[in-house]
């Protein structure tokens, strides 16, 4: 499913070259549940951004579903993101002026899904995530847990094959955090590949595969 070969990513900070990722080789099969752990600055978010096609590697090859996606131009990468990848962020990233239902609908609007189908899928997702009485509320009228449920509903609205979660519980208390993780793990039953960045060892331990990173390198599994 996901195949990274000798991936490097470096940034220029001032006139110094800083390596965020060094020679990452990684293979993730479809339906895997992977957690990436490590201290801050170890490059785990950079890796997640690369997998999510938000960032390009400085060198190396990234194959998604067997195709080399590093060679794609911006528009083609956007299309891959739209069809295959869902994001769940630490700070939710909901559009403040849109209601919960409209936030869930957003990826389908961008992809040009016909309105009737959109409405149906939004209704299903709202019901699935227990947001029936919150659908017409704006994000600032929702609790943290509800916001993250909206964000997960939005991430799954296009039925992505890969779900990338960057510290999904980072802004939540323990109970709601656990609820959110439960919701994400339910998606594994639908053969979604779940990749989660976290620095909470207890959370990371729930994944079948645990990757540890230090200073831009994979240390062990």
């Amino acid at each position, binding site marked *: 499913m996901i195949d990274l070969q000798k991936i490097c990513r470096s940034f220029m900070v001032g006139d110094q070259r800083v390596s965020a990722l060094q020679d990452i080789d990684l293979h993730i099969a479809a339906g895997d549940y992977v957690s990436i752990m490590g201290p801050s600055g170890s490059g785990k978010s950079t890796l997640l*951004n690369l997998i*999510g096609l*938000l*960032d390009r590697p400085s060198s190396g090859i990234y194959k998604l579903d067997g195709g080399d996606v590093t060679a794609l131009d*911006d*528009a083609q990468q*956007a*299309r891959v*993101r*739209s*069809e295959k*990848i869902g*994001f769940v*962020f630490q700070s939710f*990233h909901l*559009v*403040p*002026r*849109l209601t919960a239902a409209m936030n869930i609908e*957003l*990826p389908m*609007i*961008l*992809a*040009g899904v016909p309105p009737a189908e959109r409405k149906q899928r939004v209704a299903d997702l709202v019901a699935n995530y227990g947001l029936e009485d919150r659908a017409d509320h704006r994000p600032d009228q929702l609790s943290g847990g509800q916001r993250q449920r909206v964000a997960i509903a*939005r991430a799954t609205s*296009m039925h992505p094959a890969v779900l990338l979660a960057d510290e999904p519980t980072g802004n939540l208390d323990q109970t709601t955090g656990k609820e959110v993780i439960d919701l994400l793990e339910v998606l594994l039953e639908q053969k979604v590949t779940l990749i989660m960045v976290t620095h909470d060892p207890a959370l990371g331990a729930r994944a079948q595969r645990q990757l540890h990173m230090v200073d831009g390198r994979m240390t062990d599994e």
Partner: protein
Amino acid sequence: MRFIDVMHFASGSLRGSRSRTLLMILAMSIGVAAVVVLTGLGEGARRYVVNQFSSLGTNLVIVLPGRTETAGVGPGMLLGQIPRELSLDDAQELLRSRAIARIAPLTIGSSQLSQGALNREVVVLGSTAELLPVRHMKMAQGQFLPAGDIHDSASVCVLGSKIKTELFGKNQAVGEWVRLGERRFRVIGVMASQGESMGFNTDEIVTIPVASAHMLFNTSGLFRILIEAKSRDTIEAAKRDAEAIIVRRHHGEQDVTVITQDAVLATFDRILSALTFAVGGIAAISLSVAGILIMNVMLIAVSQRVKEIGLLKALGAPALQIRALFFAEAVLLSTIGCIVGLVIGEAGVLLIAKLYPSLPVVAPWWAVLAAIGTSLGTGISFSVWPARRAARLDPVTALAGR
């Protein structure tokens, strides 16, 4: 992404920041309204002058005694010397031209007018029955000067409406006698009130037959000969014929000036059209200032919504789509601003028309089109750069809000 969704999304983000949107619409609409109102005023001034001229008569050609190279008054006229005066026979001879429909000779002077104990100084116009149709004048009561021999010095007069009120009040004037200088005249008609036209107030004039005026002022020359050409196309022919006829009668000497109303009118028309263009251009500058404002505010909007743009990219929006979203916002803003501006502008024009009914203010169609074009054009072209900037944002840094 569907077109309707693009517009929906853009209008949603405009509603999201209400005061910003309202201010931009205000700036845009003031610009558009300024173009509409100012060009409306310019066009109104032009039409006012054109109307004033055509109220003097249509297809007019005017013969003046004396040769003046410029449009000013020649030195001879100031000294009371005219090379050779225009006579009544000169005027009658003009009717031989096929291009000329009617002529009205004019003699002008001032005299003491009295009736009973009342008297006042009046301008006396000597002319013929033809003056009425040539000058498009109307009667209130009675008749105008009788048609007949041009040399017949009948003792009849026609009063201007103001003079009639001054002398007779509400009483019947037609049939009464008045005294002009040493001679008694019978009132046979009263002119309808027409107000001032080109600085010449017909309400305060007494009209008598031209031969009577010559006797009254002891002259034989004419002040002007008004010629009405048969149609618009024969104005030039009438002018040529008039010149030729007078030159022949004056022994080959060209000592008259013949002007056409059209030539004077065309000059005014050109000047006032240029004025309207200039004023419209100044107003268009305020429109482009509004365009720069839109660019400025769109740039601020882009930096305020960096996170949203990052999110849209993460959700699979290609750069082109993000550009289209911001572009649609600018198009919506300028369209709404333009419509509001047109409404305000037209309302302003209506208001001016109500306050000054004599001024025919109408925004010309080209100015309305130009206002629409400039507002949409500036709004859209000034949004290209902010939209590009939004589309080029790096998604990772944008999501981090940096």
